[in-house]
């Protein structure tokens, strides 16, 4: 069974952490992943940096720009991850934008991910219809989950459609925003969390955007299966470097 599905069955709220590969230093990737697992993180999103990250706010943009300047690229990330499954057992997901994957070759990219032990992909700008028409079979062939986003503006009809096509979890964007734009949740978000919880979707939901500490983690996971922290972790790395990753995780739970 896919590691993500197994993890989703555990009787706990899941903490997922996003970081940008190649940031702060080019060769930090494996070290960060190992520390995150040892600190008790349940799942990791490895960001493949892109020059024009449309869905991201300034923090992740900046980390992506620096990672690219440091020399990160697709083949290098794959090379860094070649022995990752010798030391890491939690689910690993690559999050990026579609163009670098398209240039690498979608099938070649998926095959490589599968060989390395990557469990899923999040490509926010690969639309649902294009995925279904052209790439779903390839993802399936290599046993990769494709994780879709939903937002407070996504219609119920479309959420149902996304639920049907999803095969692990749904990435629930907490508010209409780019990453790192807002912190904390108001009544609007709580309503939205309830609405989604009451839809009885087949895939569990993991909340992202706006989670930065224990309070927001607990709010986000009151009804959802887990939560993802990205920008807050990148900010922490910028300030503290990679030596004390576990301190950040301990503050969340």
């Amino acid at each position, binding site marked *: 069974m896919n590691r993500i599905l197994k993890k989703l069955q555990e009787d706990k709220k899941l903490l997922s952490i996003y970081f940008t590969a190649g940031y702060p230093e080019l060769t930090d990737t494996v070290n960060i992943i190992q520390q995150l697992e040892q600190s008790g993180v349940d799942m990791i999103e490895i960001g493949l940096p892109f020059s*024009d990250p449309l869905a991201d706010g300034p923090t992740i943009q900046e980390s992506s720009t620096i990672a690219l300047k440091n020399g990160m690229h697709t*083949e290098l990330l794959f090379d860094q991850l070649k022995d990752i499954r010798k030391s890491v057992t939690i689910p690993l997901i690559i999050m990026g934008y579609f*163009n*670098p994957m*398209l240039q690498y070759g979608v099938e070649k990219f998926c095959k490589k991910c599968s060989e390395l032990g990557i469990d899923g992909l999040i490509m926010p*700008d690969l639309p649902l219809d294009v995925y279904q028409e052209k790439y779903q079979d390839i993802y399936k062939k290599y046993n990769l989950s494709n994780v879709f*986003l939903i937002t407070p*503006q*996504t219609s119920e009809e479309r959420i149902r459609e996304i639920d049907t096509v999803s095969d692990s979890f749904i990435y629930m964007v907490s508010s209409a925003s*780019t990453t790192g734009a807002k912190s904390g949740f108001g009544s609007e978000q709580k309503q939205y969390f309830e609405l989604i919880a009451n839809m009885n979707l087949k895939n569990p939901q993991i909340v992202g955007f706006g989670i930065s500490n224990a309070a927001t983690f607990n709010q986000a996971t009151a009804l959802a299966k887990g939560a993802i922290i990205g920008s807050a972790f990148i900010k922490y790395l910028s300030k503290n470097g990679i030596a004390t990753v576990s301190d950040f995780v301990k503050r969340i739970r």
Partner: protein
Amino acid sequence: MSYHVNEKGYYGAFGGAYIPEMLYPNVEELRRSYLNIMQKDAFQKEFHQLLKDYVGRPSPLYFAKRLSEKYNTKIYLKREDLNHTGAHKVNNTIGQILMAKKLGKNRIIAETGAGQHGVATATVCALMGIECIVYMGEIDIARQAPNVARMKMLGASVVPALSGSRTLKDATNEAIRDWINNPIDTHYIIGSAIGPHPYPDMVTRFQSVISKEIKTQLLEKEGRDNPDYVVACIGGGSNAAGTYYHFLDDESVGIIAVEAAGKGIHSGESAATSALGKEGVIHGCKTLLMQTQDGQITEPYSISAGLDYPGVGPMHAHLYQTGRAEFYSATDQEAMAAGLELTKLEGIIPAIETGHALAIFEHKKFNPDDLVVLSLSGRGDKDLDTYINYFNL
């Protein structure tokens, strides 16, 4: 072979809507309603009334006698430079502000490079009394000060794009991010024939008034409504799309596109997308795109800020790939020389963007009886500093 968009939003292999889910409701709403709204009689009436009384259309089709003599062919100039705000850009912003009103939006965002689209957007927002936010690269803000001042006078907020290379590409990213953060009340007026479907088609349709008028005017002057060639410069390609539109299916009309070669196609400082680009995804559409082998979008260069874009509209990518259009490129030096030449021969100072189109006559030999219509996309007032510095005037 169709050169128009299909029902899924593609021109051959190019186009589509490669957007994050956060943008889906907005783009989908537009996709579902844009044709219905545009095709309503009342909409068309208001659109054309404004084009006539406010923009000053139809723009003249001018027979350039001395330029024709010099190149021994028959050259007509479609005078988009005489439009209100000085370029073709306003055709689209008039259309889109009316569209935004029909969609019930009360906040407008736009991206701009040289500032022409920003000014055209700020203008129609002032006209309609709607809030306007224009994203502009920090570097462009510094080098296009008069247009920044115009936008401010017109009541727009000009927000510097501080990410990436701080030019047009990054201004577009910032505008898209604004739209993600403001999904309910905001309409994004894209200025070129780029972006997710239906933008390339919508912008092209609003700009197609250019080729529609060419047909009528040419019939009056020459007794035929189709020229042998239409020529336009291409960055994202909105003026070219409008110039070609009514001739796309008439294969007797040759379509010529001139891109910006910057300091030379292979100099590393160029914006000649058809020569240097590969199929990729930028700003929500699949098209030809200048990028690294790894799929990172690269920085284009051109002396003309309006052509300084790493992609090209998906319709043009298709015209290139199918061979329907001939693509040429002109260097900075060729475009500047052609701009100066038009000034001396015809008393018209063109925008440097248009200078690229005018450079075609040094690249391609036309027959004496060929009828060539060239889109004079904008006037050169905004480029005076560049002309002054370049020619030590």
